[in-house]
C-alpha cells in the first residue's frame, strides 16, 4: 500500500491550463512519495540508492477484531460478565484458549467462552456482555517501485524517491505496480495487438502494441506470463470480459490480475500517439516500471510508465505551459475530431454556437486538413 504522487517542477506553473494534458516526457525528474497506510518504520535513509524491489518502509496494520457475545454464551447477565472472565484486558491468547467460564451447580454444568483466534483481549463490556479479541497485526511493506535516490524521509510515514526518467501517462489502466523489460511488438501506431505477435520470450516483459488489444491477445498475454501491456485503446466490452465485472466509476489498480494494462488514448481502436510510440521505441530493452492505477475522481491518478534514464537534463528552463495560447500544441479529445493533433490558432473570448446549438467557449485549432473550431473543454495540451 502506498500513495503515489508524481510531481515535476512544472505542476505549479500549469495551474492556468484549462485541460492539463497527459505527460509524455523524455527526461524529467520524477518524485514518488511512497507512503505507509499507517505510521510505521522507515528502512532507508536519505541519500540511499534504491532499486525497483527495495523495501523502503514497513508497518503493522492492527489485527482484525472479533466480537464475542460472551454473556450469551455463558447464559449470564451482561453485568456479571467481569466476574466470570478468565482473561484480563491486554492478555494474549491462542485460538480456542478459554477467555471466560461459568460453572454453576457445583461444576455440574460447565460453560466456556473460547477465543476464536490468536490475539489480545481488548475489551470487556458489562453493558452488552461482549468481549473483543483482536488478532495480531498484519505486516505491510512498501517497495521503492522505481530505482533512484531517497531524497526525503517522512518520519514514520514513508519516503520520497527521485529518479530521472522518461515518463509517460496513460489515460486508463488496470492492474498495479510492476516492472519489466520493454518490448515493442507493434510495427506501427495503428497496428492491432493480436495473439500472433506474442511468444514465450515475452514472459515477464512489458509489451507495446499499437491501436488496440484484442481480447484474444490479452488472454494469450496472461497465458504467457506477460507483465504489462501498453496500447492505444481497448474496447469497453473487452475490459468487462477481462475483469469479469463492469467498472462503474474509474478507480482501478487493485484488480486481481497478474498483468497491468495501460491504454494511452482511450476506449475503442485508437492509434497510439506517435510521440508516445516513438518514445517507447527509443527505450526498447530497458527495464521500466508501470502502474495501471487510475482514479478519475478525487485526486486524479493516471496510469504511468516510468523509464529510468540516468542522463539528467541540465535544468533548461523552457518556457512552461501557462495555459493555452496561439501556437500551443493540443490534442482533441472528443468527437468529431477525436484524437487529432494540431495547434491553437485563436481563443475567442465570446461564446460560440456549436452543432448542438450550445453556446460554449471555443478555440480554433489548425489541423492538417484545415482549421476547425472546437469547445475549449474538448482539447488537452500536449506537453513538450
Amino acid at each position, binding site marked *: 500500500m502506498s500513495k503515489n504522487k508524481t510531481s515535476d517542477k512544472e505542476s505549479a506553473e500549469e495551474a492556468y491550463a484549462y485541460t492539463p494534458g497527459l505527460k509524455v516526457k523524455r527526461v524529467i525528474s520524477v518524485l514518488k512519495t511512497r507512503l505507509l497506510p499507517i505510521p510505521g518504520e522507515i528502512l532507508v535513509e536519505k541519500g540511499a540508492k534504491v532499486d525497483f524491489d527495495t523495501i523502503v518502509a514497513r508497518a503493522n496494520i492492527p489485527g482484525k477484531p472479533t466480537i464475542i457475545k460472551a454473556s450469551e454464551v455463558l447464559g449470564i447477565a451482561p453485568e456479571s460478565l467481569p466476574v466470570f472472565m478468565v482473561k484480563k484486558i491486554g492478555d494474549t491468547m491462542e485460538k480456542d484458549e478459554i477467555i471466560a467460564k461459568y460453572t454453576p451447580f457445583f461444576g455440574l454444568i460447565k460453560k466456556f467462552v473460547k477465543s476464536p483466534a490468536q490475539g489480545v483481549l481488548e475489551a470487556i463490556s458489562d453493558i452488552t456482555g461482549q468481549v473483543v479479541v483482536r488478532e495480531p497485526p498484519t505486516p505491510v511493506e512498501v517497495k521503492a517501485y522505481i530505482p533512484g535516490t531517497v531524497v526525503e524521509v517522512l518520519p514514520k510515514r514513508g519516503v520520497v524517491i527521485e529518479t530521472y526518467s522518461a515518463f509517460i501517462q496513460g489515460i486508463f489502466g488496470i492492474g498495479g505496480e510492476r516492472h519489466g523489460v520493454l518490448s515493442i511488438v507493434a510495427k506501427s501506431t495503428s497496428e492491432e495487438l493480436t495473439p500472433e505477435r506474442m511468444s514465450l520470450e515475452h514472459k515477464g516483459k512489458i509489451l507495446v502494441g499499437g491501436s488496440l488489444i484484442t481480447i484474444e491477445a490479452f488472454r494469450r498475454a496472461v497465458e504467457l506470463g506477460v507483465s504489462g501491456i501498453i496500447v492505444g485503446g481497448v474496447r469497453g466490452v473487452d475490459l468487462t470480459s477481462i475483469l469479469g465485472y463492469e467498472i462503474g466509476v474509474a478507480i482501478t489498480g487493485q484488480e486481481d490480475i497478474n498483468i497491468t494494462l495501460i491504454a494511452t488514448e482511450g476506449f475503442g481502436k485508437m492509434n497510439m500517439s506517435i510521440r508516445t510510440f516513438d518514445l517507447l521505441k527509443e527505450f526498447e530493452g530497458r527495464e521500466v516500471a508501470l502502474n495501471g492505477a487510475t482514479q478519475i475522481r*478525487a485526486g486524479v491518478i493516471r496510469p504511468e510508465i516510468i523509464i529510468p534514464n540516468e542522463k539528467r537534463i541540465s535544468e533548461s528552463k523552457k518556457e512552461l505551459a501557462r495555459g493555452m495560447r496561439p501556437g500551443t500544441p493540443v490534442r482533441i479529445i472528443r468527437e468529431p475530431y477525436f484524437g487529432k493533433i494540431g495547434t491553437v490558432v485563436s481563443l475567442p473570448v465570446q461564446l460560440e454556437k456549436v*452543432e448542438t446549438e450550445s453556446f*460554449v467557449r471555443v478555440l480554433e485549432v489548425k489541423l492538417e486538413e484545415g482549421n476547425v473550431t472546437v469547445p475549449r*473543454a474538448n482539447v488537452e495540451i500536449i506537453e513538450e
Partner: protein
Amino acid sequence: MIWERDEKAILRLHKPEEEMQYILVTDVGSTTTKARLFHKINGEWRYALSGEAPTTVEAPYENVIMGVQNAIREIEELIGLKFLSEEGRIIKPHAKGRGVDFYCSTSSAGGGLQMMVAGVIKTMTVESANRAALGAGAIVEDAIAVDDDRPDYQKIDRIRQLRPDMILLAGGTDGGTTTLVMQIAELISAADPKARLGADYKLPLVYAGNRDVRPQIQKLMQDRFALEIVDNLRPVLEIENTEPARMAIHELFMEHVMSHAPGYPELMNWTDLDILPTPAGEGMAMQLIAYAEKKNVIGVGLGGATTNVYSVFDGKFVRSVSANLGMSYSICNVMKEAGVGNILRWLPFEISEDDLIDILRNKMIRPTTIPQTLDSLLVEQAVAREALRLGLKHHKTIATRLKGAKKVHRMIGEMLEYMLEETYIDMMKISIIGGTGGLLSHAPRRVQSLLILTDAFQPEGVTKVYQDSEFMMPHLGVLSKAFPDIAWNIFDKDCLVRLGTVIAPKGTANPGESAVKVRMEMPDGTIFEKDVEFGEIIRVPLAEKTRAKAVISPRHDLDVGAGPGKTLETTVEGGVVGVVIDTRGRPLALPEDGEERRKKLVKWFDSLELYPRNS
C-alpha cells in the same frame, strides 16, 4: 426553517446590506467550480454573470483556490471589472470599481461529505439516521444496523474499509434499548475506522441515540473520536427529529472535514459565511419552491458525480443521493446500473451496444469534455434519462413512512420485526418537478430538459416543470442564510425557469385510440381544443407567467387526477416550452423493435421540436 437569516452563520459583513453592490458566490463542484455574480441594479438584486473553471482540488494542483480564482477571472474578463487582487485574493468590499461586498460558497469537491450511519433497527433508527445525514447533504457510504443480516465480522470489515468523513450513530428511543445501542457502538469502536482525509486527526462522530446511554457512549468513544452528542433523532417511535443531528453534521463538516481538504482552510478564510455542502444549498432552494407554491415537489440535481433527488411531500422534506449516478465521473456507473440497452433505447439513431459502451467509457476518462455534435448530445441526454430514473427509484426507498411498531415477535434484546411500507411518493400528487445540474441547465433548448425530466420521472396528471436557468440553486441556497430577500428575488426572477405544464394521463390504451380531450381558454381569448390520440406528445405554446383554464377529459380507463375517465377542470401555467400533452402512457413503454422505436422517438422529438431538424 428555510430562507430565514441565520445570524450565527454570518462570519463578517463588510458594509451595511443597503450599501452593497456586488455579491459573489461559488460552488466548488466535483468537476467544475461555478462562480455567480449578483449585482444591484436600480435598487434591485439580479443575477449578472457566470464564470466556470475546472475544480482544482485534485493533483497536480491540490488547491481548490486555483479553480475558484480561474472561475472569478472568467467573470472579470466578461464584465471588465477587477475582483481579485494582484495576490489572487478576493478584494472586499467593492470600491472604486474593484472588488465585491460579500462572498460565500458551497462545496461538493473531492467527493463531498461522505458519511457512515449506524443504529439498531435497519427500518427504524438507521433509516432515520440515514435521512438525517442525507438531509445534511452527505453521501451515505453505508448504513450499519444491529439487524442488517450481516454477521459482525462482515460489518467490522466494512467499517474498516470505509474511510468516512464522519459517522452518525443513532439507536433506541429515549428510555428504550440500551444494550443494542451499546452493541453497535462497541462494534464501531472495535473496528476503529479512520478518517478519509488523513490519519492524523480524530474522526468526527455524532451520537443521536437513546439519551440514557450518553455517559457510556462518552466513555467508550471520546478517546477515539471527535464526539458530539445531540438529541435523539427518534426520541419516540412516532417522531423523527433530525434537525439537531443535521446541525451538528454541518458544524463538524466545517470544523473537521473542510479544514483538511486541500486549499479549504484558505477558502474558509475568504468566505463571509460558513461553507455549505452543495446538496444542502440545493435542498434549500427546492424547499423554497414547495414553500412558495404550497405544493408537493420533486426536485433533482443531476451532477457530474452524483444525483440528488429532493421531495417535499405533504410538507415533509427528504433528500436522497445516488452517489454514483452522474453525467461525467459516474457516467459508466449509470450504464452499469441501468444496462447499456436502457440507454440505447432513448437514441433515435442506430448504434451498436459495443460502440455506445466505448463512447461512454471515453467520457468517463475525460469527464470534463462536452458534446460538440448532436449525436454526442443525444447520447448524454439518453444517459441523463436513465440517471434520473434510477435516482427517483432510489429516492422512493428513502422517502418512506416512519415504520410503525408492528410487533411480530419478541426475542432477547427487544429484537423486533417491522413491516416495510412502500414509499409515499405518488406521481399523481406531485404538482411540480424541478431540475438543476449542468446537463439540464446547459441543454441547448429548454424543451430538451422538459422532456428528459418527463421521460425519467413520468409525471402523472397535471404537473408543472421548472428548471434552474444557469445552475445557481446551491448558490442562492447558501446566500439565503445571510440575505434571504436578495436570494429570493434572484431566485424568482433569474434562477427559476418555468418550462411549462405536462398533462399526462395515467394508464395505457392502444395507439390511435382517443386518449384525452383537452380544451383550454388561452390568455388571448382563443380556445384550444384537441382530441389527442394515445401514443402522442404535443406542445401547445403558452407563455411564461400566463395561465389558461383547462378542461381535461380522459377516456374511461385513463386518469388525469380526478379518477379514471373523470374530467378535470383546472388552471394550467405556461412556460418557455408551454403546455405539453403527453399521451404516451403511464407507465411509458417504448417499442421493443429497434427500428419502430427509433421512428417513434423521431416522431416525438419532431413534434416538440426538440433538436435541429436537418440532422
